[in-house]
């Protein structure tokens, strides 16, 4: 039973990681930038989710507002920060991104206070029993279902619509794509919007799961997100998804069996380092 519970908890955590890491992968695939500041959008989503729900009582409205706001902020980050840096060596954008993230974290702390916000009446908290014994919170089931649904929609958009195909083409060969009349600028904007909206979506879910948002809630998903896109083989959406779920499960087992030796973050990164030593191209990349 413990075994199944650990897998289930790992998958819940992995779904959150997947939502955050997908945005990072989209950006990495397109621009080759490690977008650390992505996690700020996740935190922003969390704050907006709690505030809108507390003010209006509507969780769906909270999701919409959090996703749109995170999406637009993401596009602004791209235009103001990354676009002017594309011609610089890669570390320039990485360091700028870290700086941006730290600044955002501090702004959240100054604006909303260090102790964080909670839901006045947290929705989706009832326990549900599945498969004769496994206990879930409604929110935990919803986050897994929500992630699966969103990913299905994304996969559909990516392969069946004009803009999706344009995105893929731009990722694999920007110059060729441009010569076929694809507007790079537009594709990048859309990419940042979608990836950032996903981070905002994840933020609201984490706020629901923990019933708390705090300025630093983005740190862990952000660094884990980077680990996940490396594990997934950098820029591959399918690899990222698998890596996120695997990491979630590895962590949930690790905290039980290695908890005396290492803490949760250390387990994740130890796993990352071991994998990279064996497969420098990532867990799910074709070599």
């Amino acid at each position, binding site marked *: 039973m413990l075994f199944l519970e650990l897998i289930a908890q790992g998958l819940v955590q992995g779904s959150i990681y997947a939502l955050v890491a997908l945005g990072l992968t989209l950006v990495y695939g397109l621009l080759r930038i490690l977008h650390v500041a992505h996690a700020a959008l996740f935190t922003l989503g969390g704050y907006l989710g709690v505030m809108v729900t507390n003010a209006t009582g509507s969780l769906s409205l909270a999701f919409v507002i959090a996703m749109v706001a995170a999406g637009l902020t993401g596009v602004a980050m791209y235009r103001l920060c990354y676009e002017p840096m594309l011609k610089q060596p890669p570390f320039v954008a990485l*360091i700028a991104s*870290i*700086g941006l993230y730290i600044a*955002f974290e*501090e*702004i959240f702390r100054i604006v909303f206070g260090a102790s964080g916000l909670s839901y006045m009446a947290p929705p989706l908290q009832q326990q549900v029993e599945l498969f004769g014994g496994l206990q879930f919170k409604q929110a935990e089931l919803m986050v897994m279902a929500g992630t699966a649904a969103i990913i299905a929609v994304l996969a559909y958009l990516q392969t069946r619509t004009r803009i999706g195909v344009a995105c893929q083409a731009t990722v694999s060969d920007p110059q060729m794509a441009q010569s076929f009349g694809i507007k790079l600028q537009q594709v990048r904007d859309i990419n940042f919007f979608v990836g950032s909206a996903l981070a905002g979506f994840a933020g609201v879910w984490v706020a629901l799961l923990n019933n708390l948002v705090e300025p630093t809630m983005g740190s862990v998903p952000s660094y884990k997100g980077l680990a996940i896109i490396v594990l997934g083989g950098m820029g591959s959406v399918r690899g990222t998804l698998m890596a996120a779920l695997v990491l979630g499960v590895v962590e949930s087992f690790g905290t039980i069996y290695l908890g005396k030796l290492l803490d949760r973050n*250390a387990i994740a*990164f130890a796993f990352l380092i071991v994998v990279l030593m064996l497969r420098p191209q990532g867990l799910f990349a074709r070599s």
Partner: protein
Amino acid sequence: MEYEISLLTSMCISVLFALSLNLITGFCGQISLGHAAFLGIGAYLSALLCKAGIPFLATLPLAMLLAGCIGVVVGLASLRVRADFLAITTMGVGFLFVGIVRQQDWLGGEMGVSAIPDSGLSKMGFMLLTLALCIATALLCLYIRKSWMGRVFNGVAEDEDTMRVLGIDVPRYKLAAFAIGTALAGLAGGLYAQHLKFIGPDSFGFVESITVLSMVVVGGIGSVTGVAIGAAVLSALPAWFQFIGDYKLLVYGGLLFLMMRFSPGGMAALVTRMIGAAKGGRA
């Protein structure tokens, strides 16, 4: 006076630490997001040995040795990955260090190591020692940059593949950069533990790695004088401007971003550009 001496000591330690990262990231182009781990290794070893009764000065070379050896191991691991992968791997090393220290009771666990025995030096003497070590490190860096090894470092930073084609044993030089840089970080760690008399896992986490990276970046990646000035200024800012204290991270983060956005070469490049502009104006 006591306060000034203490401030000067911590500035010297910051400069030494920043120079050690500059060797790896600035000279050799190997980005490291976990450098504080090596500060931590030096600090923990020195502190624990001091508590075991070994004189402080004797712990410093040991701190350098251990940090350098672990640095080589990390370097060996890093040889398999490049650029962005390396950044994430070194970040992982940082998290791993904090995670291990936090869970080990004999390393003090969450509580850290406190009541580190005195070095036997006066406050002034300790300050002079750090200052001397700091100057020696700066001179070493200047010497390395001019040497054959420094030129290879630069070549590796600029274009690794070309260096390989030229028949240069790139891994050896990368490891050398890691070894020297991490050993110096270990030295800074020994001084750090002795200066503060207390260390804990949180003193060596990701934020500290980023803080030292911002010192290097703001000073000017690769420039010895630039990095020394950048580290000295940034480490003293919160003390000089009390109001910055609460907003220290906002200032660091903002500076990192603004520097990268408007002058990726840091202050060193900014000054060079201004001098160039002034000369150009006259001509």
